[in-house]
């Protein structure tokens, strides 16, 4: 349940026959070739007035982004290893009375952050697995196998995108509390956190559109050679789908790590809660420097994850979804 607009990338197979190659290559190639022109022309940029203006605007933007986006995180990193009194009295000073690395250990061990950290890891891995399974098998059935009624089914899946998440919160909770037919109660179980994450129409649509654009000749050739549904899936379609699997994966893991409202509702037992849900309660009863250390630990992994997979995060856009 994000507050503002959430961006979802659109991934298409590469047009080249070499389909299994990593996606970023194309981007690099384009940029290397790239006298792609933007708002200003090369001629304009040579004019002294424009050159100075651009230096000021672009440099100013970089400074602004460094302060506004990186600044709070650097401040958090600094304050996580600063004694409470220094942070309270001189919030912007750089270690006036030395550092206190002990905070990180206190947070990890004594307020038991390690437990909530591993809970979050479990939830992220489980949500990822469920989302992958649903999106890949569903996308494959809808795009390649196309049994009767699959268009209607796809419509029903897409329709859920138009239902605001708010409508689902309470009925979903009651469903998870007493599952239809089996009467299982998934509250306080990780299944209650994983399974609803799988009902993502964005994932299914993303994977289906990717499979739609796979070269039909390859699939037909495999069929002629007597390839069954399962072998086609495992040996032909999946190996060609690394780009879309990568995108679904990174967004699934990050979304699970960021999620707050659903785990808050479905995991009332503190021993099972992820970091997001537990941190506000811990913050109320813990000394400030340890809280800040805990916050740093909680965002370290998603930030590292983002830095490693930045290409997958930064290439997306709505345009395919809008025009398609």
């Amino acid at each position, binding site marked *: 349940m994000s507050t503002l607009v959430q961006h979802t990338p659109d991934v298409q197979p590469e047009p080249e026959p070499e389909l299994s190659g990593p996606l970023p290559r194309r981007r690099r190639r384009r940029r290397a070739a790239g006298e792609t022109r933007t708002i200003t022309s090369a001629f304009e940029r040579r004019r002294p007035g424009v050159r100075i203006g651009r230096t000021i605007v672009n440099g100013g933007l970089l400074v602004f982004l460094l302060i506004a986006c990186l600044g709070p995180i650097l401040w958090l990193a600094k304050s996580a290893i600063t004694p409470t009194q220094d942070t309270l009295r001189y919030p912007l000073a750089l270690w006036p009375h030395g550092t206190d690395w002990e905070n990180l250990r206190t947070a990890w061990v004594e307020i038991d952050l390690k437990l909530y950290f591993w809970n979050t890891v479990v939830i992220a891995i489980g949500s990822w697995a469920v989302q992958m399974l649903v999106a890949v098998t569903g996308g494959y059935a809808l795009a390649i196998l196309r049994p009767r009624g699959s268009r209607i089914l796809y419509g029903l899946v897409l329709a859920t995108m138009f239902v605001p998440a708010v409508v689902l919160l309470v009925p979903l909770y009651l469903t998870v509390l007493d599952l239809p037919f089996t009467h299982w109660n998934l509250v306080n179980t990780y299944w209650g956190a994983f399974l609803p994450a799988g009902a993502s129409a964005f994932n299914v649509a993303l994977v289906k559109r990717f499979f739609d654009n796979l070269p039909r000749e390859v699939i037909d050739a495999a069929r002629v050679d007597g390839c069954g*549904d399962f072998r086609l899936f495992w040996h032909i379609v999946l190996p060609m789908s690394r780009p879309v699997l990568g995108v679904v994966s990174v967004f699934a893991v990050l979304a699970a790590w960021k999620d707050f409202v659903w785990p808050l509702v479905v995991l009332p037992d503190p021993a099972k809660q992820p970091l997001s849900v537990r941190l506000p309660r811990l913050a109320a009863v813990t000394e400030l420097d340890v809280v800040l250390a805990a916050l740093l630990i909680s965002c370290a992994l998603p930030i590292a994850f983002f830095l490693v997979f930045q290409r997958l995060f930064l290439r*997306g*856009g709505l345009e395919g979804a809008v025009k398609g």
Partner: protein
Amino acid sequence: MTALLARLPRLPERLGRSLGPLVFLLPMLLVFGLFSWWPIVRSFVMSVQQTNMVTPATYVGLDNFRAVLDDPLLTTAVQNTAWFAVLALVIGYPVPLILAVVMSDVRRARGLYSLLAYLPVVVPPAVAVLLWRFFYDAEPTGVFNTILGWFGLGPVPWLEDASWAMPSLVLEATWAAAGGTVIIYLAALVSVPPELYDAAEADGAGILAKVWHVTLPHLRSIMLITLILQIIGTSQVFLEPYLFTDGGPDNATLTVLLLVYNYAFANTTGGDYGKATALSLMLAAALALMSVVYFRVTRSWSE
């Protein structure tokens, strides 16, 4: 009987052929069925029932809707939610647009710019709110108040004053979400036809004229989408008011979704699932109506 026996050997084969698609559809059918389609249907049923999950549900007609409409907090919640959405439009909507347009013309290290812009998006919202709650310390030694102090301004009672609380929430929400929209705009800006810029220059257009007559028109259809998506998203704001202020001070940040949550899950007043669902449905209906009107009105603009 013999005819049936003769057909038997072919049965597994035919079963196998129709089983394939079904096996692949099964995870999707189960997960969407249980955790999306069924709860959607159920929300309509629950809104006309009295449910507390202990005694069997009873049909109560429109009582839940009446109870919600009679709640004096509803007006407050609707006004606050609208105020949040308006502030988020005024503060939050232009920011990613301006960032993206300037960034699209950066020639060196553009990757660094988008990396920095997106960084706040990957910070878990609960972490971001707890961090900003400390930045918003109302004391003169609070982080933001110290910075304002350098310029002789403040101190500002960020979260403690009823009229300051909501803008403070919006400021953090904008910080947390702008990067995602920047990436959307940047991706759209890649596809501006270079000839349009060339033609504009031939007509003697300066840089700002090119932005106004080429860049922004190219973004128009995306901007219309991000606008309505943002309004839909901000109308469901929950995390910021819940974690920053828990609706306070003096209900100044009580939003519709916070009210839904309180009906259903709050310690003292919770457990009224029928009322919570009724309010959720009313919000969803309002958003649906607004989206329909929006797309009707803007249909001719996006071409």
